[in-house]
């Protein structure tokens, strides 16, 4: 009796999980379905699970539409996401290492000054940051889109926590061999800390690729649009080709899904180890 109940409970849970999983996948299905359907299928009076015909040519068509600068936007997004990721990881890891390992009298003051900025979400400072960037003449430039976003207190915090728990013996051995902080860091510490670099890197990359408010505010010229801004401009415009929009959206998530599937375990490990749930 008790056994049967537990088994029924377990079966119910699996059914519920499968149902939820399908529900979570529906939006992805809609993205692919609408991207490959013809305009008539998307706007048909009654929605059908399968479109009547598939238009694989949508995939190439969208890149040649002069109104939707998808190629340029993808290039901009790639440049921004890659340079943001590299810059953030280098700057934050060095700062995290310095804070964790180099004894300095005022290190805790510096650390709290960095940590305090976590309390002021970046999005809230977008008005004054916009003012600063426009004063510098960086509107619609790669510099303006990337440099102000490079100093992530969150990333610095994660690196510091990681380096605090890093085995000291390796570094001591390097010191005995006569290596200074600089070479110890690049030759010994970095190669042995690959997981945390992968974790922070993927999180930063996803954030940079998907960010919207900052590129919307700073990337004002069409030539500086990121994929997200280009898509947004077309969802809020009046006349649009729905199938093109959906193909473009589908193309825009491909890099992330690839990064995500390849590096998922690092993201999970990074989140688990970041200390934010401690």
């Amino acid at each position: 009796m008790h056994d049967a109940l537990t088994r029924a409970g377990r079966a119910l849970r699996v059914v519920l999980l499968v149902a939820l999983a399908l529900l979570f996948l529906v939006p992805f299905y809609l993205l692919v379905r609408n991207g490959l359907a013809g305009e008539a299928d998307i706007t048909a009076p009654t929605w059908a699970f399968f479109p009547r015909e598939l238009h694989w040519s949508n995939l190439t068509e969208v890149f040649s539409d002069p109104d939707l600068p998808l190629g340029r936007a993808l290039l901009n997004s790639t440049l921004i996401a890659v340079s943001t990721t590299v810059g953030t990881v280098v700057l934050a890891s060095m700062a995290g290492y310095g804070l964790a390992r180099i004894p300095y009298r005022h290190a805790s003051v510096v650390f709290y000054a960095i940590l305090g900025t976590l309390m002021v979400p970046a999005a809230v400072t977008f008005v004054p940051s916009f003012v600063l960037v426009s004063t510098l003449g960086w509107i619609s430039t790669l510099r303006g889109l990337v440099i102000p976003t490079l100093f992530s207190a969150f990333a610095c915090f994660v690196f510091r926590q990681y380096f605090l728990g890093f085995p000291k013996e390796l570094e001591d051995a390097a010191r005995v061999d006569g290596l200074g902080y600089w070479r110890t860091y690049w030759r010994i510490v970095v190669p042995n800390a690959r997981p945390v670099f992968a974790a922070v890197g993927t999180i930063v990359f996803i954030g940079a690729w998907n960010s919207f408010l900052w590129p919307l505010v700073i990337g004002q010229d069409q030539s500086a649009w990121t994929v997200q801004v280009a898509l947004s401009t077309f969802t809020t415009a009046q006349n649009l080709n729905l199938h093109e929009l959906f193909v473009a959206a589908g193309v825009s998530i491909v890099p992330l899904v690839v990064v995500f599937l390849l590096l998922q375990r690092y993201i999970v490990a990074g989140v688990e180890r970041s200390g934010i749930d401690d």
Partner: protein
Amino acid sequence: MSARTARLLGPQRRNLWFWVFVGPFAVGLGLFTYVPLLWSVYLSFFNAHNTVNPTEFVGLGNYTAMLGDDAFLGSLGTFLLFTAFIVPATFALSLSLALMVNRLRFAQAFFRSVFFLPTACSYVVASLIWKLSLFNGVRFGLANTVLGWFGLDQTAWLSTTSPPWYWLVIVTVRLWLQAGFYMILFLAGLQRISPQLYEAAAMDGARPGWQVFRHITFPQLRATSVAVLLLLVINAFQAFDEFYNLLSDARGYPPYARPPLVYLYYTALGRDQNLGLGSAGAVILALIIAVATVVQARWFGLGRKED
């Protein structure tokens, strides 16, 4: 240790090396976070229409204008309402997903990936799917088609304000996008619970299921729960992308659903370009968030380790 390394590691050298490592980051953070913050405070005391170099000092004028502005106060109300929906909903869903996935004996990685995958999607893309396919107007949306199967009336989801159906669209987008991330946090928390606790509970006759959850699992997840709540509220405060992408169109943005950031965006960078007023709003918002974070952290004793 040789004399050479001893010299290299002396206090002077150490201070120098500290700044070599921390300096670039600290300078950048100062320049792009502290300077804008201070500049914002400065600007907020000036009348700054269309300019970043204001001359007319207005004292607290911008602050009183902002705090007496129904639209700004309304935006805070929108935030509160949004938080009241999204925080409990995300908390419940992500915790349930974690509990269900955690006990799976097979396909655990598969289900975890499915629920986490939306994290890779941007708010822009998700809003596009929600707005133009799932909850589309009166025709050709999936939601309306499903309603039709049950013989129910079709709904113009995004433009119906009473009942506020647009709210359903806004809440579900964020729920879909972020539940998987918080599920991972809960999974991490669950994995840290000692199996001995469950064995002890079983010996004491606790029935698996609700009793064990209430007396063992949930109390053990306290630290994780507090962190999740804190992150959820802070993120809700920053809601911009989905509101902007779901509700604005070629005709403009409807006034009934402006959370603070959307309101500030239109005040500071909209047609008015009122940077003084926008800065005052940003300062007020930053203060509210800082106070809310500190109060919440104190309230729940964030950082206190579990016994």
